[in-house]
């Protein structure tokens, strides 16, 4: 437990010291609020069932933070650590491999939650954004979605032969998903073809689930999203566990 807590704390600190990852997790989402808030404001709109543009951006940007952590933070760090021999060094200690993975996952989930809290604070200060759900439910959902997306990130990090490849694969997955899943730009303003494409992107289901719970829906109204994300989680985690290499 001592090693788990220490490692989680260190991993959090290391994440924050990484300027690019920190920018996209902590600074970029509030900047989006500033930019798109200035453009669209937060007046109630029929497009979003009478909610404002910034209201619906809160769960959407949370999904964006989650994707940043899962598709940029996880694979690039894992690939880089393996390539440099950091994982080898950890493996040669009395640290249990399982403890290492758990601590890395928890640090990444905490980072996601910290990013979300920062985003909501900015959204509330500037636009008094609405929240109609249950805080605990939303936090559980963020953790669930985070685990699901991170399992894909670990899978990429496990199969990528080096940090460079991990980075390229991550970018190729991350950027289209950012713009086409409703995380960066609401799907409501997108043409039908894009909506069709979006239905094949895992992050789309994260956005749908988080937005629904954010505005008071119950899990029961999101069985499809829950099932798809659970499937990704089970499949991704099982495959990552099989393919994970320390060196």
């Amino acid at each position, binding site marked *: 437990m001592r090693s788990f*807590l220490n490692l989680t704390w260190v991993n959090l600190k290391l994440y924050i010291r*990484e300027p690019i990852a920190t920018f996209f997790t902590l600074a970029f989402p509030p900047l989006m609020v500033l930019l798109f808030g200035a453009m669209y404001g937060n007046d109630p709109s029929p497009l979003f069932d009478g909610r404002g543009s910034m209201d619906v951006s809160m769960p959407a940007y949370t999904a964006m933070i989650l994707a940043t952590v899962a598709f940029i933070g996880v694979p690039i760090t894992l690939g880089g*650590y393996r390539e*440099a021999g*950091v994982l080898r060094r950890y493996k*040669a200690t*009395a640290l*249990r491999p399982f403890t290492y993975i758990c601590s890395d996952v928890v640090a990444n989930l905490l980072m996601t939650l910290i990013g979300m809290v920062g985003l909501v604070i900015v959204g509330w200060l500037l636009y008094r954004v609405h929240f109609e759900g249950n805080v605990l439910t939303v936090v559980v959902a963020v953790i669930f979605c985070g685990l699901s997306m991170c399992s894909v990130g670990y899978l990429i990090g496990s199969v990528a032969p080096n940090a460079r490849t991990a980075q390229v694969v991550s970018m190729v997955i991350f950027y289209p998903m950012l713009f086409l899943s409703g995380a960066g730009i609401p799907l409501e303003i997108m043409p039908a073809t894009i909506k069709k494409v979006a239905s094949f992107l895992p992050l789309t289901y994260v956005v749908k689930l988080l937005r629904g719970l954010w505005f008071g829906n119950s899990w029961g109204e999101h069985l499809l999203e829950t099932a798809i994300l659970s499937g990704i989680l089970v499949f991704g985690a099982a495959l990552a566990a099989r393919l994970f290499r320390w060196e």
Partner: protein
Amino acid sequence: MKEVLQVQELRKAYGSVVAVDGISFSVREGEIFGMVGPNGAGKTTAVECLEGLRQPDAGSVQVLGLDPWSGRLALAERIGVQLQESALPPRLRVAEALRLFGSFYQRRVDPEPLLGALGLADKRSSPFAKLSGGQKQRLFIALALINEPQLVFFDELTTGLDPQARRSMWDLVQHVRDRGCTVFMTTHYMEEAERLCDRLLILDHGQVVALDSPEALIRSLDAERRLVFSITEGQTAPDLAGLPSVQRVEQSAQRLVVYGHGERFVSSVVYALEDAGVPFLDLRTEQPNLEDVFLALTGREMRE
């Protein structure tokens, strides 16, 4: 003498390449044991089998009474490891690394004295990426000692370091042993092995070529020693080649090189010169070293 490590017929192959080919040896408590050999001899593979990082194909290994592969975590508590190739997260700071690695073990020492002993006290807040090669190696030694191990493995500790850093590393290794920790080290520098090791195993192509103390290995060669000196101009050297311990003499102008064997070699040459009343200058003897031992045993030069 108590043994801390026993290896019987250890074998490890990667596909058709046999890296370690049936080696047997043991390490005694409190010694500095060296495994030397050229790059690619199988040293790192052998060490990693002892550390529990690789599973041997055949043979038995006992380290501190444990099987390193099946008892890896239990063994890890009691040994220290410095790997030939490894790194820390680039932004992890020195003091953080020591605290973090300490937390991985049940038994751990206070990191502060370790930082001081390894000359890292003023680097405590430096990130790993900003350390020099020597500082990184010293940090890795500190990490290897954080759990107060009974046995520590140093794999190619000084490779890539400049001569000065290498020498300070040697002092550290001796210091570690003086604290009561058995040291197992690998190196491809014969000079380093000769300087540090109580006993050493010469490994070549995955096999044990020799195993003894450096002095005994050199003595066992019974190799020629050389005596080099100059005589003043106009003097003629006596007939040194006729002495029983001398094999041959080479002379160019005033400079003589005498080749010979045996305990009385040097004294008999010096006595003959004195007896003939021939003054000599700059006398020195050249001993065979471990490089010569390796050459004699394998028929090849150690390659860098």
